[in-house]
C-alpha cells in the first residue's frame, strides 16, 4: 500500500534520512522505534508531506502511495493529507467545541449539510471510542476534556475526513497509563479499516499493538520485519542492543 524507495531527506545540509526502503502493508499496524533523533518522526511526517512546512527540507527518492509517487509534481498535497491522516505527539484539539473540531475537516472539504455533519460527527466519535463520554457535551469546548480524551478526539477528527492511513506520532507520550491503554485498544480496533503507522518510544507498546516494526538509528532504517521476529531474534546487533535496553 505504501512503498518507500531509496528515500533520503536533508534539513539544509544535514542529512536526516539515509536511503530508506520499506513496504508497508495495508490494514495493519506498523511501529517505528528507535532512540530520540533517529529520524523516525521525520520519516513519518514525510509520508503525508508535513515536512514540506519546514524551510530548507530537501527530499530524494520516492514514496509510492497506491502506486503513485507522492512527490510527483501533479500531486494535490491537500488531497494526500486527507487520505493520510495524522495524530500528533501532544493532543492538539482546536479551541472550539467538540462538534466543531470533528466537523472541521468535512467542512473544509465542502460538506455543509447539518444532517450529514451530525452523522459524520457521531460516526467519527464512535470510531474513536469516545462517543459515550462526550455525546452530552458536543457543544462544549474541547479543551475541557482530559488529555487522553483530547487525543482520542484528535483521532476522531482525523477519521472524520475518511482517510485510508493514519499516522500517529508518539500519540501516548503525553498520557497516563490508563489513557495510553485506551489509545492502544483503539489503534488495534482501527486496523480493521485503516492502515496505521505509529512512532513510539515505548517498546512494550510496539510489542503490544504492532504487526510490523522498523528500527531506526541515526537516520538509517536498520531492520524491518514482523514485530515478533524483531523482538524475539533481531538480526542486527544494534537492534538487539536497543531492544534489550543497552542504549537509547
Amino acid at each position, binding site marked *: 500500500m505504501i512503498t518507500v524507495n531509496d528515500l533520503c531527506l536533508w534539513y539544509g545540509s544535514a542529512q536526516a534520512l539515509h536511503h530508506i526502503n520499506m513496504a508497508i502493508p495495508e490494514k495493519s499496524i506498523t511501529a517505528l522505534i528507535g532512540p530520540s533523533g533517529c529520524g523516525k518522526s521525520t520519516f513519518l511526517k514525510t509520508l*503525508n508531506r*508535513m515536512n514540506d*512546512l519546514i524551510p530548507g527540507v530537501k527530499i530524494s527518492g520516492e514514496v509510492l502511495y497506491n502506486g503513485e509517487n507522492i512527490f510527483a509534481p501533479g500531486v494535490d498535497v*491537500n*488531497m*494526500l*493529507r*486527507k487520505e493520510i*491522516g*495524522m495524530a*500528533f505527539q*501532544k493532543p*492538539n*484539539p*482546536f*479551541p*472550539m467545541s467538540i462538534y466543531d473540531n470533528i466537523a*472541521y*475537516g468535512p467542512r*473544509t*472539504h465542502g460538506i455543509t449539510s447539518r444532517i450529514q455533519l451530525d452523522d459524520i460527527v457521531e460516526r467519527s466519535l464512535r470510531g474513536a471510542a469516545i462517543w459515550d463520554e462526550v455525546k452530552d457535551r458536543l457543544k462544549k469546548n474541547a479543551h475541557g476534556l482530559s488529555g487522553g480524551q483530547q487525543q482520542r478526539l*484528535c483521532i476522531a*477528527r*482525523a477519521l472524520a*475526513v475518511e482517510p485510508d492511513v493514519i499516522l500517529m506520532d508518539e500519540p501516548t507520550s503525553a498520557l497516563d497509563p490508563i489513557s495510553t491503554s485506551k489509545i492502544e485498544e483503539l489503534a488495534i480496533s482501527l486496523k480493521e479499516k485503516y492502515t496505521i503507522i505509529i512512532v513510539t518510544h515505548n517498546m512494550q507498546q510496539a510489542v503490544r499493538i504492532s504487526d510490523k516494526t522498523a528500527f531506526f538509528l541515526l537516520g538509517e532504517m536498520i531492520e524491518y520485519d514482523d514485530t515478533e521476529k524483531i523482538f524475539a531474534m533481531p538480526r542486527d546487533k544494534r537492534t538487539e542492543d536497543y531492544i534489550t535496553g543497552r542504549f537509547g
Partner: protein
Amino acid sequence: MKNRKQLAENAVHGVFLLLGLITVGCVLLITVYLIISGIPAIRQIGLFNFLFGREWASTAAEPAFGILPFILTSIYGTVGAIILGVPVGFMTAVYLAKVAPPRVKAAAAHAVSLLAGIPSVVCGLIGMRVLVPGIRALFNVPDGASLLAAIIVLAVMILPSIINVSITALEAVPKEYEEASLALGATPVETYFRVSVPAAKSGIAAAVVLGVGRAVGEAMAVMMVAGNAANMPSLFESVRFLTTAVASEMSYSGGLQRQALFSIALVLFLFIMLINAVLNFFLKRSKEK
C-alpha cells in the same frame, strides 16, 4: 556592614516607590482637575442641553453650548476610520504574520513602525495638501476639508496599532493548531482564516479597540483636514471633533466658554476611559487563553 547594605536597599526601594507614585499622581491630578473644572459649565448649561444640544455658538451674543455635533462627529469619524482601517490592517497582519517570506516581513515591519512614528501634524499636512484637494476634485464639492478627509487620515493613522497588535496575537497562536488543520487537508489560507484568526480573536479585538482609542484621541491631524466648523456630521461637510473643539478655541476663550471647553475635555476623557476598560477586558481574555 549588613545594616548599611540594608539601608541602601531600602533607599532604592523608596526611590522606585516615589517614581511610581509620580506617575499615579499625574493620572490622579489630571482626573481630579478635569472633573473639578469640567463640572461648573455642565451645571450652568444643564447636562441634557450640554450633551444633546445641537448648536454650538460659544462667541455669539446669545451663546449656545450644545456639543452633540462634536460627540457625533467623534463617533462617526472613529467608526469610519475603523471601517476603512480595520480590514486593511487586519489583512496586512494576517499576511505578515502567516504568509510573507521573512525578508518581506522584516521590510514591512520597518515600514509599519515608521508609519507609527510619523508625527500627526505631518499626517495632517499631507492630508491638507493632497487629500483635501483630491476630495474636492473627485466628488465635486465646494470644500474638500470634511469628515471624509478626517476619516481617511485617521484610518491611516490607526493602521500601525491594528497591524502590530494583530500580528502579536496571530503569532501567539500555537503552531499545533495550524499543523492539525493542514494535516486534515485544509489549505494554508483555509487554515489562517478558520483556525489561526478565530484562535487570535481576543487579541485582534484588542487591536481594534486600541485603534478606536487612537482615533478618538487624535486632534492635530483631524483639525487640519476636517474644516473645523461646528456642523452636525455629514460626510462632505466641514466638521469639528471633541478634540479639535477644545484645541481650536482654548487660546482665545474666557468665562463660560472656557469652562465649557473643560467640560468637553471631561467628556472626551470619559470616552477614553471607557475604551481603555474595553481594551483591558479583551487583553485579559486573550492572555487567559
